[in-house]
């Protein structure tokens, strides 16, 4: 929790995940809006000819975006675990920074459904979208609320 706003510090959470740090994902948090930023680096390239970002990187980024949004809305506790994720690749990812936003379409006690989008220069022209299910708590863990 940050002292002033009483909101979970998602950036600190993200920096604690080695893989998110390695990919170069940071959080731009403005009030209750979370935007994830994937900073471009050479190692993210999947097709050197175009060049274009690796599809797996885009998938990983969308998954991380969904987790960040869930961690923000669900508050402290264990990190949500992905159950399934469907990624639609809409445009090739250019070798520039990528931004992501996620919306929780339904949050149950144990499972949440999340939709995430990634874009580069133009928010109206997303490069990829994903929707997935995340496990918030295992069945044998006691529900807190």
């Amino acid at each position, binding site marked *: 929790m940050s002292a002033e706003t009483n909101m979970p510090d998602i950036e600190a959470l993200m920096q*604690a*995940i*080695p*893989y*998110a*740090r*390695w*990919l170069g994902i940071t959080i731009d948090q403005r009030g209750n809006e979370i935007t994830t930023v994937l900073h471009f680096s*050479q*190692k*993210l*390239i*999947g*097709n*050197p*000819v*175009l*060049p274009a970002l*690796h*599809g*797996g*990187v885009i*998938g*990983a*980024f969308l*998954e*991380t975006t969904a987790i960040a949004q869930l961690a923000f809305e669900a508050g402290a506790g264990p*990190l949500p*675990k*992905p*159950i*399934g*994720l*469907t*990624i*639609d*690749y809409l445009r*090739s990812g250019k*070798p520039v920074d990528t931004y992501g936003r996620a919306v929780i379409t339904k949050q149950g006690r144990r499972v949440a459904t999340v939709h995430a989008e990634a874009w580069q220069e133009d928010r109206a022209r997303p490069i990829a979208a994903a929707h997935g299910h995340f496990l918030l708590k295992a069945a044998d863990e006691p529900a807190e609320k």
Partner: protein
Amino acid sequence: MPVPTWRGGAERVKGISGVFTACEDFVMASGFKITPEHIALMKDVLIEHVPHAKALGMTVVNAAPGEAWLSVPYAENLVGNPETGVIHGGVITSLLDNACGIAVQLALPERMSIATLDLRIDYMKPATPKLELMSHTHCYKVTSSIAFVRGTAYHSDEADPIATCVGTFMLSANRSMPMTPEAAAEAMALFAQKKGGAA
């Protein structure tokens, strides 16, 4: 040679020569015959010249017409949960996406550019820390413009999967010329020059 099914049972043959013996008699419906050169080219172009695959330490362990076996070694920087040391789901996404792409290339009569249309991944269980990730992908149908693939990520037993996936790929996605290793190397050099850094 019994054609391995995607649900396991395929023998893991190390090295390209072993693969060659296994696939020697396999001729694709189109008349295309898979050769060790073809597999070496796949290995070279699809891993060596894909910076992200290289960064993850991805290797083609085995290949057959329409099928690929890849591995990614465990590394601390790929951890998704610092408390448990479990690898991030995104690493599995990258491995399966790349492995699906290679399976498609191995099902095509010639090299062409492909693009992932969609990929669905189901996570069955967390990966075990410190263990190498394996994947087996199979491109089971190719039409004039789309290829269909499914795959599994596992540690040692394919029947006990960490994740499974299904995906579709668009063929001749970018209308670019088939990429030879030389062309790929040249492209990488150009790219590195342009970006001012080693690829």
